[in-house]
């Protein structure tokens, strides 16, 4: 059995320089929409995300006509609300996902999704990770994407069913015809790997 080589430590200045190049292209385009209302960048974002969002919604059982409508509204918000995009908090994909998810929930419930109100007087502030010390989210999410790509297919399939289809663990077990405990262990193994990676990104 061969041992993995120790990861080499990159000098901090080098890392800062790499950071700019490693940023994912979708977040860069979304930045261009945010700052300059760049239509060309938005077209590229639309080409990339519109079909993925529609596919995400269809998997949740939304009929075609309505999933198209929610997708179109999602992309409209990406265009109109790009000023709210903050690359320190989320990458483009995560941001688009949350918009689509919220519209989906609003649609099925006919009520607004319950979310934290950051102006709530009861809000307990996060004193651990202020924006200054937090890792750039796009950097973290790049590492995350790479890590998901390396997971064994049976683990990424479980992730997909849980996070995109929104299935409960029991439903995943039935869908894949495997015991519930197998679902749990695949999920746990996958999340452990991804967590380690997010912490060290």
């Amino acid at each position, binding site marked *: 059995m061969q041992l993995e080589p120790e990861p080499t430590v990159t000098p901090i200045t080098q890392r800062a320089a790499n950071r700019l190049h490693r940023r994912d292209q979708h977040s860069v385009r979304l930045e261009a929409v945010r700052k300059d209302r760049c239509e060309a960048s*938005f077209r590229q974002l*639309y080409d990339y995300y519109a079909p993925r969002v529609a596919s*995400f919604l269809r998997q949740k059982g939304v009929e075609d006509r309505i999933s198209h409508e929610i997708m179109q509204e999602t992309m409209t918000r990406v265009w109109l609300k790009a000023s709210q995009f903050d690359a320190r908090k989320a990458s483009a994909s995560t941001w688009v996902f949350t918009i689509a998810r919220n519209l989906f929930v609003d649609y099925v419930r006919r*009520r607004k999704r319950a979310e934290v*109100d950051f102006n709530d007087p009861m809000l307990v502030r996060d004193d651990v990770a202020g924006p200054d010390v937090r890792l750039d989210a796009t950097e973290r999410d790049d590492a995350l994407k790479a890590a998901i790509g390396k997971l064994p297919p049976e683990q990424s399939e479980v992730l997909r069913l849980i996070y995109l289809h929104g299935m409960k663990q029991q439903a995943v077990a039935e869908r894949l015809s495997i015991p519930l405990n197998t679902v749990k262990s695949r999920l746990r193994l996958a999340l452990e790997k991804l967590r380690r990676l997010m912490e060290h990104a």
Partner: protein
Amino acid sequence: MAQYHPSEDLLAGYASGAVDEQTEALIAAHLTFCPACRRMVTEHEAIAGALLERESAPSASVAGVAAILNASPSRAPSTFNEPPLGTLSKIAPQPLARYVYEKTGEADTEGLNWTFYGPGIKRAILVGDEKGALVRLIKAEPGAVFPDHGHGSDELTLVLTGAYRDQTGRYATGDVQCAPAELSHQPIVEDDGVCFAFVVSEKPANPKNITAKIVQRLIGR
């Protein structure tokens, strides 16, 4: 800072938009109190976002993007109304106060339909009925002792104000007790304040042995 948190499963379900509306309201209220769980949800959202990129997808329509870029910038106002701020928002975080308002039309705790649940304890059923309260607010006076009860199914309790204890621990503002169906307990409210709690269950909590106990007391056993 909250000591008891929703399970990872529930937080992932919340992030993916898959939990029911009452659980969503409970989790959003817990998140208001709990920065640690907010970070967890952010991680789950990042995982979902990364998975979204991996979806295979046909090409996008040209008409769709043109429709957005050519639309006039004025937008229709949101169809969701913000609830008026009443005394409910003094005890409950916004997402929960809004949920209660939507279910009852009440923005004040005093206006809710409180019914007797035990000495010093009242409850307002938001979803369900006397036989099967699925979602309810509980208001318990300092020192109140709950009837010993089992749970027909898993039950989530979010403490809003005050604190109570049972054999599993002490639950204070922001804490979520996940009571499994098999738990039988008798929570005792602490002396220093009124305890408001929001409870979500799939089936009714069946007050176990209440009659049996009364009988026992009457016959002095």
